[in-house]
């Protein structure tokens, strides 16, 4: 850990609290959207897009601020870039394969 001055740390703490509040608000929005989704008869696709978008924003906040990813070293980025690529390959290729099947033609 690099040496931080007390003022610097206090500044960071303010940021963490801000992120904390943002996360709580976003959680409330997710739940509200989830409930509205049933009452407003939103299409499933719209519900998924809203739900996942909020989750991605929340995830970015946690990873970026709590896990310090926004000012992390390039080496970590490279590892995570490969991971992200393979993650999406794993998520998407099976489903693409499934949808292009001889039995559905």
């Amino acid at each position: 850990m690099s040496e931080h001055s007390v003022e610097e740390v206090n500044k960071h703490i303010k940021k963490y609290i801000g992120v904390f509040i943002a996360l709580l608000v976003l959680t409330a929005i997710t739940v509200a959207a989830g409930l509205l989704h049933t009452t407003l008869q939103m299409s499933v696709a719209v519900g998924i897009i809203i739900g996942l978008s909020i989750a991605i924003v929340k995830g970015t906040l946690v990873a970026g601020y709590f896990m310090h990813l926004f000012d992390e070293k390039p080496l970590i980025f490279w590892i995570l870039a490969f991971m992200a690529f393979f993650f999406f390959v794993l998520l998407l290729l099976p489903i693409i394969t499934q949808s292009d099947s001889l039995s559905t033609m």
Partner: protein
Amino acid sequence: MDIPYTVSARKDTGLYNGKLGLWLFLASEVMLFGGLFSALVLIRVGNAVWPPAGTPELNVALATFNTAVLITSSVTAILSWASLAKKDLGGFKKYMGITIVCGFIFLMAKSFEYYGKLSHGVVPSTNVFMGVYYTMTFLHVLHVIGGLAVMIYLWGPGSKMWHTNPGRFSNRIECTGLYWHFVDLVWIFLFPVLYLL
């Protein structure tokens, strides 16, 4: 001779060993949950009705409460590390204590939720959705338990290291925090995917 870079960062990578190791571990964890999410997507697309007819309602209120609990524990985890950065062991103990308590609250709420389901005869084999629900949440619970075990150690006997090797101790807390935020992160995705969509 001691193994280098356990406390300070290596110049060309800018990292100490533990941090690189932990990020690599987290990358593999992402792929583990990636496999599960991939399974979920494939099964979901393969079923015309989702969740399948007859699936009991999940307890959204309890899960929302648990989301808030985990987010709180995440922020206290990072505050405990920040306390160490300010050379404040008492603050560390306080915030890490809150994190641990939050972890236990999460587990209790979760057991309550499981109990509510199981006592009504809703088990993993009920249908494919409940299978996904139990498997994914339980794997997440196992991660919570693992994290708690480490944090309790570091809060209790492990904290003696602060007096002998403070740099290394705050590195340990930083790494534990990274892992704990990851557990939080997984929940942030599990919550809407299982409970709301």
